[in-house]
């Protein structure tokens, strides 16, 4: 691969940001098996607290940057069939392994060496998908293919309106969660 100075700079940013991400996930406790499985059992709400706070803070900043600094969004196309089926299959795997792709890497880093099994599975599953990718693109990934759709464009309202409503909603949920013991 050609290494231009711009590319080197971008990969160095990936090193710094990746270190931060792993550091934060570990500190949040979401690399722990019982915390992740506890969330799926609705006994431990750490995962939802971390994710929802990240989404709240991230959403406000990203839409601010998008509007005032021309920062590009990176929206994944909506394919209703593939999103639903893929989500369900992912959820099944999440429950079975007790980790997700990011937190599995964190688990390995904090010394849970058997997370390697999940990681080997992740690599194998990726290749199995790739084997069928041409077929999936012509079938399930065409079901309900809506392109790059956002909630504001779906609802025909301004970005700021959705951000404002969701800011109130997420803050409310987070305050409610903070008052429970879990």
């Amino acid at each position, binding site marked *: 691969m050609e290494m231009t100075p711009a590319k080197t700079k971008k990969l160095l940013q990936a090193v710094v940001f990746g270190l931060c991400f792993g550091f934060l996930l570990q500190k949040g406790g979401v690399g722990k098996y019982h915390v992740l499985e506890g969330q799926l059992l609705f006994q431990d709400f750490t995962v939802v607290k971390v994710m929802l706070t990240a989404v709240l803070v991230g959403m406000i900043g990203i839409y601010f940057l998008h509007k005032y600094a021309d920062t590009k969004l990176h929206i994944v196309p909506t394919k209703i069939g593939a999103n639903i089926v893929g989500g369900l299959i992912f959820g099944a795997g999440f429950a079975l392994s007790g980790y997700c792709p990011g937190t599995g890497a964190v688990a390995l880093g904090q010394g849970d060496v058997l997370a390697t099994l999940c990681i080997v599975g992740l690599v194998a599953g990726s290749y*199995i998908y790739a084997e069928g990718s041409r077929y999936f693109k012509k079938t399930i990934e065409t079901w309900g293919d809506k392109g790059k759709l956002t909630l504001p464009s779906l609802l025909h309202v301004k970005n700021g309106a959705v951000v404002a409503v969701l800011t109130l909603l997420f803050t409310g949920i987070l305050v409610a969660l903070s008052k429970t013991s879990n």
Partner: protein
Amino acid sequence: MTTGGMWSPYVVGALIGVLCWFTFYFSSQKIGASSFYATVAGFIGKAIAPKHTMKLAYYEENPPEVNWGFVFVAATVFGAVLAAIMGGEFALRGMPLMWTQRHGADSFMLYAVVSLLGGALMAFGARLAGGCTSGHGISGTLQLGVSSWITVIFIFLGGALFIRLLY
């Protein structure tokens, strides 16, 4: 259960939100984890069966290379090492306590099968849906992507259903 070295989930979440601002602004990238494993699988495939691998639709569109997402997740592991050492939580561990309490200390074969299968299903589902709990669950939902909100809802639905097989 030790909670030594842990930070408030709200503080961690807020800082991850800020980290997303940085990756969008400085790198024009969203945080995601699952594509790392597809890249690794691509490297292995390219080493063993290069012609076959590069003819697969997924790798035609996403040729395996040391890209931003690959370096990001590789660094994630080391970030976790650092945090665990600083918080006094770093130790080499075997099967999780929650697992052995439910399934016994002699259940390694079952644990191995369930972990491998779980990992494979996750990667397959993530590729089909276009992302995982990071790419859809955090980066996608905070951009208000419809695909991400659908996917994350079905991830937790599938997870809550299938965990009943184990607990």
